[in-house]
């Protein structure tokens, strides 16, 4: 592109339950926008080519890679990031508490992405909870520190507890 005009758009979206408006460059991806445009630095950038999953956030309830979506594409959308998981009074979510209990994080860099992938999973009452299922669900999130075992244990623990609380069977 030879001209030097900045291509920007105004967007309006809901982020963690709050309406937000911003002006951003059209080429800015969603995770960079959340981090630097809105100051929500909990979502992280690991590869920028859609493999590591560190940038996973929910858009309209679906776990997506924030590095592969443009911020302007989230205009009008409902976005949820790791910062939305704890209660308003600060109590950690069942999943977050399970992660602490099971030592499911070490450096913590991949953790928000994993929590958001699991946030979609935990809302799906139809899935059959098993270790194989959880490992497959997490296959799009890379972790270099933990070896995944404690993450799987934490996820199984929390997903079972959440389902039981809803009155279903695991």
């Amino acid at each position, binding site marked *: 592109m030879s001209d030097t005009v900045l291509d920007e758009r105004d967007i309006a979206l809901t982020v963690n339950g709050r309406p937000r408006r911003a002006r951003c460059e059209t080429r800015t*991806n969603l995770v960079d926008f959340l981090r630097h445009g809105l100051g929500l630095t909990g979502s992280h950038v690991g590869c*920028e*080519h859609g493999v590591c999953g560190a940038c996973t956030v929910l858009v309209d309830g679906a776990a997506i890679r924030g*590095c*592969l*979506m443009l911020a302007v*594409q989230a205009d009008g959308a409902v976005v949820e990031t790791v910062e939305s998981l704890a209660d308003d009074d600060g109590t950690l979510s069942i999943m977050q508490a399970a992660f602490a209990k099971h030592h499911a994080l070490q450096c913590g860099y991949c953790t928000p992405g994993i929590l958001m992938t699991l946030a979609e999973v935990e809302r799906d009452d139809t899935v059959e909870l098993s270790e194989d299922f959880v490992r497959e669900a997490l296959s*799009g999130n890379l972790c270099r520190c933990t070896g995944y075992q404690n993450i799987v244990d934490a996820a199984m623990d929390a997903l079972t507890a959440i389902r039981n609380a809803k009155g279903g069977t695991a």
Partner: protein
Amino acid sequence: MKCGPFRYHAPTELGEALELLGGMDNAKALAGGQSLMAMLNLRYAMPDDLIDLNRITGLAGVEEEPGGVIRIGAMTRQRVLERHAGLQHSMPILRQALLQVGHIQTRNRGTIGGSLCHLDPAAEQPAIALLYEAEIEAASAARGSRRIGMADFPAFYMTPAIEPDELVTAIRFRPWLGQVRHCFLEFARRHGDFAIVSAGCLVACDAAGRIERASIVLGGVGSAPLRLVAGEALLKGEVPGDAVFRAAAATAGDIEAMDDATYSSTYRRHLAQVMVRRCLEKAFASEEGAAAA
């Protein structure tokens, strides 16, 4: 790796998108973004204009047309297809294949049209489309709509036979009726990776239990998915069984396979034979492999 600058367009009507596309000489259409955004971030592609297809009404959805043809809009999300009750019934192999496409995050955004246009040699959706001899519907502002048989859709490595001013708008499948043995198998390093080699099959038998119709597709072997025509011919009229499957699979030893720094053509051809045989065996092994329309 941040992408280069572009002018961004978000048309809401197909006609608008086609007009835009027709008037630009360095434009890219953005579907699910699971392939294109990575390429943009890596600066492998530097379009001057980016046409976002995600706001266009009418490009997504699954419709059954008269005559039993299923028309899937190009912008239909893979996750929607994966969970579609009707498709699970009429084309269960599609779901088998989709569950191996990347990960949850990939399929939540990725579209069937995007995968078809990206045409990665190992991609699952082009393989399934070829298995069914699907028809690709493409449109341009200048020439209107046309249909391309999936066999003719790949022009070169990762290049579909559509013009720069065309967009794929839909894919039409004609599901097989009756009891159809089916299986899609992929050999990959990790769950969700592109296959090294994949094999899919649809097999229908007559009332006497002889194979009446067979379709076998291989992915990851050639620069585009290919049908194992010789193997299909061998199956016809035969009673399904290990020896017959082995013979059909052996025909994959004669196909031309890609040779690159990661995998040799010898290995790919070898895998092709293994995967075809296993695919046929699995299709007939369990009730999972059987479907009634």
